[in-house]
């Protein structure tokens, strides 16, 4: 499926009319907000912990180049091979190369937005490999051939009956046999319980983990002083992907570095609580280099791919670089009235919700993302929710400015801004315009004003007030109508 933020308007319009989607989103966003709220309520010194996590992220950005160099050096000393990728194509090439070098046939992947961002799966598949998403939600959307719809819960848009139907149709591809104690996949009914479905996926993927030649994951935090990568998860699929296959590739977007173990600990204090309302996620792995001599499991060969893909340019932007603080807890998505209404798919990119609109605008081609910063009510719920204190609305406004500077509304926009600042001129101008065009619907078609159509197109002038005589007439009619039932009452 081709996804592109270019269609954001159209897709959001469509999503608004999808009643099922609305119900699912309502349920999911409330569920996450309730869990998170309960966890934060009992989190002593919450604001101080938030401030420390923000400081750890800020410190990383303020020293980004030197920390990345240090990370390269420490990770190399621990035995990890470090690669730098300027863009998605280069990252795909590097990872495909590693996979080919180790003769990989089966690749297992832990949930990672960044490998989604670089469209890794199709590249590996094109090189003849079998690629499995192993996070349950990602596995389900992979089988369905859809993109994930939420950072934390990729398949919230699917019901258990959908999943049962999907497993019935697609799990045969995995060549599974002997699922003792479970209904065979052909007679898996729509009423199969959620634990049954989960167990089925566990068995299917267990075989893949044990057969895999390569595990690919993202990175939650990379520690510059020790060369470690830290991975956070609940299912255990990321542990499996780094424990069983002989080779592990970790892909990090370059801002995910932390200077010290202390900074990483400050981040770990906050991230799980903000993401899922857990005090700590089920599994946090701190991995430093490949397995050592005499160790019996863990990858023998470890790689770290440091990906830029547009991020380094953002560091020069004093306002916009705040977006690079984000550690993807997903909390701002659930708090956003726009996300609650349209969901993740409408954004047309891996990243959705408030932070998604910002990241996509910063990382993807400008002509594809011009609508994203406008899909925002500036209500500020995201800003209040974000544990790292990212001021999304401020960034959104800055992006709008950028879009407007680069599009053709210049003259009309300047004229409007002058008029808006001078009420007297405004009244005169509007009065004059209304005199020739009472409903202002000819305005967009006026020739000779570059960008005017573009500017007026998205704005609606207030309707003219009806003359008093017409208002009076309507009022009388209304009165007559409301009287009627009253008089009828006695007849009933």
């Amino acid at each position: 499926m081709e996804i592109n933020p270019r269609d954001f308007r159209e897709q959001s319009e469509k999503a608004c009319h999808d009643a099922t989607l609305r119900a699912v989103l309502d349920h999911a966003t409330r569920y996450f907000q309730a869990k998170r709220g309960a966890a934060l309520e009992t989190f002593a010194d919450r604001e101080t912990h938030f401030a420390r996590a923000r400081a750890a992220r800020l410190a990383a950005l303020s020293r980004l180049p030197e920390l990345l160099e240090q990370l390269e050096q420490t990770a190399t000393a621990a035995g990890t091979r470090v690669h730098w990728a300027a863009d998605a194509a280069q990252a795909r090439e590097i990872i495909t190369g590693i996979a080919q070098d180790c003769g990989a046939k089966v690749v297992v992947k832990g949930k990672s937005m960044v490998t989604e961002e670089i469209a890794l799966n199709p590249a590996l598949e094109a090189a003849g490999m079998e690629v499995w998403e192993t996070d349950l939600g990602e596995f389900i959307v992979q089988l369905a051939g859809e993109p994930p719809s939420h950072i934390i819960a990729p398949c919230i848009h699917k019901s258990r009956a959908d999943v049962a139907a999907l497993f019935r149709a697609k799990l045969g591809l995995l060549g599974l046999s002997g699922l003792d104690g479970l209904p065979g996949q052909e007679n898996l009914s729509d009423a199969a319980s959620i634990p049954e479905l989960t167990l089925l996926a566990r068995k299917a993927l267990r075989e893949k983990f044990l057969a895999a030649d390569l595990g690919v994951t993202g990175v939650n935090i990379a520690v510059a002083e020790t060369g470690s990568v830290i991975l956070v998860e609940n299912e255990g699929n990321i542990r499996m992907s780094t424990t069983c296959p002989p080779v592990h590739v970790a892909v990090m977007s370059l801002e995910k570095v932390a200077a010290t173990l202390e900074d990483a600990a400050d981040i770990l204090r906050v991230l799980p609580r903000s993401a899922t309302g857990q005090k700590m996620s089920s599994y946090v792995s701190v991995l430093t280099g490949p397995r050592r001599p005499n160790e019996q499991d863990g990858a023998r060969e470890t790689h770290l791919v440091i990906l830029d893909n547009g991020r380094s340019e953002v560091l020069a932007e004093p306002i916009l670089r705040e977006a690079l603080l984000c550690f993807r807890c997903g909390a701002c998505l659930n708090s956003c009235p726009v996300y609650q209404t349209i969901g993740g798919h409408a954004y047309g990119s891996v990243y959705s919700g408030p932070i998604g609109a910002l990241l996509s605008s910063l990382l993807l081609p400008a002509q594809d993302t011009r609508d994203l910063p406008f899909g925002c009510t500036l209500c500020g719920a995201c800003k209040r929710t974000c544990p790292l204190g990212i001021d999304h609305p401020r960034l959104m406004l800055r992006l709008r400015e950028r879009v407007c500077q680069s599009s053709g509304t210049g003259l009309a926009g300047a004229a409007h801004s002058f008029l808006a600042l001078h009420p007297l001129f405004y009244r005169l101008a509007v009065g004059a315009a209304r005199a020739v065009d009472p409903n202002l619907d000819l305005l967009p078609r006026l020739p000779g004003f570059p960008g005017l159509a573009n500017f007026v197109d998205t704005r609606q002038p207030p309707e003219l007030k009806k003359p008093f005589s017409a208002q009076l007439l309507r009022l009388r009619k209304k009165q007559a109508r409301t009287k009627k039932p009253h008089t009828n009452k006695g007849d009933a």
Partner: protein
Amino acid sequence: MSSANAREGILATLRAGLAAAPLSVPAPPARPASLSVGPDAWALLAAVLEPLEVRLRLAATPAEAARHVADIARERGAASYARWADLPAAAEMDAALAGLTRLEPNPSGCCQALARADLGLTFAQAALMDSGSLVLVAGPQRPRSVSLLPPTHVCLVPRAGLVADVSALPELLRRHAAASGAFPQGLLPSCLNLITGPSSTADIELVLVRGVHGPGALDVVGLDWDLE
């Protein structure tokens, strides 16, 4: 463009960005005081483990610890087990689990071998009272998969390992790196896992299910004596 060129380009852009718009970081507030580890530490740990459906059993002696492990194995219906080689009270454990088959991890196919075990027995370097996280450090005698592949994971937690929260982790890691002869100086262990409750997912209809890829059951045995 090669990876080396990419490196130079990325670092140059980052440097130019920071030079054009320097980023100053205000000093963060002091880290709030941690929970203190007092005589009620076991009770605190038990209370935070409970909502995770993890039961803490306390043992005053190696024999009692072994009895707990045998009870757990029976309750979970385990017929085979795998364990870390250098556990405290290892001999007692093996004696108590004599009715079960012990599976040995072998370096060529460690995961394949351990995938058949019903129960994995490990030892935590520390436990975080704030979150109920068990801190496991992998090593030559301590395969990572013992706490991951079997459907039941039993973890021994020594009294001296009780610490407040994740802020204790850096020091623990450094101590480990410095003390362990097996690792080059200053190098962290290859793998440290924080384990907090059983493997879990809520990906289908947001319904919580335990045991999706890792163990669905986690049991903790507290070793309430001084290990030498």
